[in-house]
């Protein structure tokens, strides 16, 4: 078993794809910050507090997009059994988890500030419930991976749980929407009717930046997973040779 066929030595942030992601993200983040804080006008009702919408909502988009990527790579992993797909599954699972945590932490902060304490209105909002459930499932998937005796078992179980989590998300969302019996308002009133074009542009830029960030973090995490896999294989090989 060749532990490290292909390029030897440094596997640091190599690859043209990753470099492109790095450069575009580095440029795009200051731009997004400018757009969100300076370019976009204050919202009518909530004022400056509404600006978190430019970060919180894109983070949510990215989280749910992440669930789709988890599903795709998990299916690929289970059908092909290639370690490569496990690295993608692990990367997408972990990065989605990070963004999911961000959404969960910032949402209530925003809601508390905006609604000034009417917790009951938003605490079981469909989007919050769906995000919370997704977070629990992603945490479970990551914990099971860690607890598995072998890397291969962890990969399989992680993929299975990833698939179950991703499939559950739309169902949970539907169920929680029905449960409330009405559509609770989460966005500030200004959003539904004629969103100011400047706000729309700022929102678009921020969404793009978050997707770029997602791509960058997944690329890095995948690389880390691959290098760790190779290191583990090399260590195993070294210990086998030491014994023989």
């Amino acid at each position, binding site marked *: 078993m060749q532990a*490290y066929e292909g390029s030897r030595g440094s596997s*640091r942030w190599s690859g043209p794809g990753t470099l492109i992601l790095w450069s575009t993200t580095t440029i795009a983040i200051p731009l997004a910050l400018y757009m969100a804080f300076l370019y976009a006008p204050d919202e009518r009702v909530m004022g400056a*507090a509404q600006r978190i919408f430019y970060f919180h909502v894109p983070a949510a988009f990215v989280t749910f997009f992440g669930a789709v990527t988890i599903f795709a790579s998990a299916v690929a992993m289970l059908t092909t059994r290639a370690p490569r797909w496990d690295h993608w599954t692990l990367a997408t699972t972990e990065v989605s988890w*990070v963004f999911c945590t*961000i959404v969960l932490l910032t949402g209530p*902060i925003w809601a508390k*500030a905006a609604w000034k304490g009417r917790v009951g209105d938003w605490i079981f909002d469909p989007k919050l419930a769906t995000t919370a459930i997704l977070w629990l499932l992603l945490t479970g998937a990551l914990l099971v991976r860690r607890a598995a005796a072998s890397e291969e078992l962890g990969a399989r179980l992680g993929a299975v749980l990833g698939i179950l989590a991703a499939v559950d998300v739309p169902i949970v969302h539907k169920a929680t929407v029905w449960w409330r019996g009405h559509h609770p308002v989460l966005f500030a009133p200004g959003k539904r009717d004629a969103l100011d074009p400047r706000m729309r542009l700022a929102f678009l830029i921020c969404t793009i930046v978050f997707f770029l960030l997602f791509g960058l*973090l997944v690329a*890095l*995490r995948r690389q880390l997973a691959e290098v760790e896999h190779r290191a583990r294989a090399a260590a195993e090989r070294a210990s086998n040779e030491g014994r023989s």
Partner: protein
Amino acid sequence: MTSYGALFWAYNLIWAVIAGYLLHLILRLRGVDRRLAALEREADRAQPER
């Protein structure tokens, strides 16, 4: 952003978490790279002996 103190922290939280994760990944990548390089050097040393 002026009157909502909690909101200010929320904004910072987002970037802090993302930056923290990025840093964490980079550090881990460096560590594993070093380990892999060391293992490869060891294997190289072992090879000529055969």
